[in-house]
């Protein structure tokens, strides 16, 4: 008991990695992706693969006759799940879990500001996900695939999308401040 009291009285350490060291490591991972596969990292592309695969399984006729799915197949040969980003995202889940386990951060919880309820947090999480899902298709990639990976290869479109993402969030930050601060 006494020892516990003492540890909680210690000045709090964040338990997170120094962000600049983390950034260099992130950069090396992205460099490795480009060196190995000739492409950057991504996340939304894996979701798109799963969406195409499930639609083809559940409604093959619809998928075969609908433009979006036809265009996907013109660009991607083979099974939509046999995709670089799908394997990479499985790794992300494993790596995130391993890091959380090592740091003692594995816990089921809804993280939210004390000023709002869990329910409100979850409603906005769902809405945010929907917007991000639609936006990532228009942007041809998300913060990882378009913004970060695009910056590394100096893609004009990637850098434009990056500025639009952060600009869009800052533009609405005032209206959603209660959710966060």
């Amino acid at each position, binding site marked *: 008991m006494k020892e516990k009291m003492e540890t909680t009285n210690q000045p709090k350490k964040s338990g*997170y*990695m120094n*962000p600049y060291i*983390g950034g260099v490591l992130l950069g090396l991972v992205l*460099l*490795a*992706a*480009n*060196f*190995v*596969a*000739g492409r950057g990292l991504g*996340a939304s592309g894996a979701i*798109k693969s799963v969406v195409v695969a499930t*639609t083809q399984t559940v409604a093959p006729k619809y998928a075969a006759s*609908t*433009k*979006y799915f036809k265009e996907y197949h013109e660009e991607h040969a083979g099974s939509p799940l046999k995709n*670089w980003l799908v*394997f990479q995202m*499985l*790794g*992300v889940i*494993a*790596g*995130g*879990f391993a890091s*959380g386990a090592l*740091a003692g951060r594995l816990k089921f919880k*809804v*993280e*939210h500001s004390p000023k709002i309820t869990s329910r409100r947090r979850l409603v906005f*999480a*769902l809405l*945010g*996900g*929907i*917007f991000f*899902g639609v*936006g*990532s*298709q*228009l942007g041809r990639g998300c*913060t*990882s695939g378009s*913004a*970060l*990976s*695009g*910056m590394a290869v*100096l*893609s*004009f*479109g990637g*850098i434009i999308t990056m500025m639009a*993402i952060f600009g*869009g*969030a800052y533009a609405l*930050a005032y209206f959603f401040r209660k959710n966060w*601060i």
Partner: protein
Amino acid sequence: MGPLAVNDIISSNTNFFLAFVIGIGFGFVLEQCGFSSSRKLAGLFYGYDMVVLKVFFTGGVTAMLGLLFFSLFGWVDLNLVYVNPTFLTSAIVGGLVMGFGFIMGGFCPGTSFCGAAIGKIDAMIFIVGLFIGVYFFAFGYPMFETLYKSANMGSPKISTMLDLSDGVFALILVVVALGMFYAAEWVEKKFPREEY
């Protein structure tokens, strides 16, 4: 030499296996930096935690410089590295919509998977939203198609657009990043939050 998969130095299956390994590194680093927490990520937009800016730009600059040096040493052929295409209107509109999603949901797709991996229920719900969004786009594609395909500029590099060499643009970006890091440290002191 590189990219290994494009030059057929490694097989397609090896490439998929390495994708998994690279993904582990990606997820591990994101989680170690605190990107599994929406309140840490959202700090960027209110100034109380600028970790996103620091990690994101350090990562981008590191990879960019790494690729330029690899190219200089002849280790990677930059002509074979994928450069994201530019469809200008769609890039701007899509980016803004993603930004709205970011401030509402507190995650982006990659970070939401990291959060879900350590048990964040808000991250799991965000992922449900992502799927709804992508299905909506897929099923409503005729509605988005004109916007999606307009203003196709090919795959230009920003250095080419500005009539600079890659190296000079890289140097400018490094200086800009250092300036932003300096500002970020100052902002965190100005808008501190003890507990969040």
